[in-house]
């Protein structure tokens, strides 16, 4: 039991260790920071967001965002600030423009193509099969007499 308590204290300590990235976090600022940081790519540890990453640059960028939030900048202004410096690549939700059309439309276009091919195939198979060779179908009485034997 004591061991469990110790373990719990240790885990709690870890959690606090993460929360105390700055001295006096303001919950409102931190909530906005979290929402923003989860949509921004960490440049040195690609495929992680700057919310998830422990890289020094991610920490610096989080602090930069914190400061801009406390300066009263809107989320869009902060996003624009990041894009101006690192390009659209920092956004996990890339904007809709000429160079990203394929990115946004591509998967749906492929899905539509797949459905179209499937539909055509199914239709072709549903078409009535050509008459089986061998001429006349056997009559019911013929079949029954065969089954009796």
């Amino acid at each position, binding site marked *: 039991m004591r061991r469990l308590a110790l373990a719990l204290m240790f885990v709690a300590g870890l959690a606090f260790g993460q929360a105390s990235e700055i001295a006096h976090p303001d919950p409102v600022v931190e909530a906005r920071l979290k929402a923003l940081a989860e949509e921004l790519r960490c*440049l*040195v540890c690609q495929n992680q967001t700057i919310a998830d990453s422990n890289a020094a640059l991610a920490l*610096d960028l989080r602090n*930069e965002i914190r400061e801009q939030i406390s300066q009263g900048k809107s989320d869009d202004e902060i996003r624009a600030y990041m894009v101006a*410096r*690192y*390009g659209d690549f920092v956004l996990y939700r890339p904007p809709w423009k000429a160079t990203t059309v394929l990115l946004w439309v591509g998967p749906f276009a492929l899905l539509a193509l797949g459905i179209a091919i499937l539909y055509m195939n199914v239709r072709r198979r549903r078409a009535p099969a050509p008459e089986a060779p061998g001429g006349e179908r056997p009559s019911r009485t013929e079949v029954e007499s065969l089954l009796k034997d």
Partner: protein
Amino acid sequence: MKSLRFVVPLVVFAALAIFLAVGLTRDPREIPSPFIGKPAPAFKLERLHDSSQSFSPQEMKGKVWMLNVWASWCVSCRVEHPVLVEFSKRNAVPIVGLDYKDKREDGLQWLARFGNPYSLSAFDAEGRVAIDYGVYGAPETFVIDKEGVIRYKQIGPVTPEALEEKILPLLKSLGA
């Protein structure tokens, strides 16, 4: 109709192969800088060698110059350093260093030990100026023209090849 059965997968495969081949030649770590063709952000920082003096990019107006982001803790900067030292001997353009997230003593010691190719170094202890320049790792090097517009950004070490093939021709075309 029958021959389509072979042609279609072949075409699809060829297209895929071309896309993948192009993808292989690209470095995903190299993010094209949106700064090319834009004015270099203004800043004012202490100089590394003399904290009573400051540096700001406006002082370089009318000159073609290079801004090199470095740090004593940065391993690739060590690789790059001899290239810059060699280049600085040609006196082609002034190279301004930006000592990035470093300790002053460490930075000074590093330059004393490996040579100082910089006409001066600005001291960016917190890395705020570097963030303003979209730096995401050292070393990075910017070529800035007479009007203060960023014309080129080298991500990672300046290699002799990059210097000869890209930077020097650019400097020449900018009238350095």
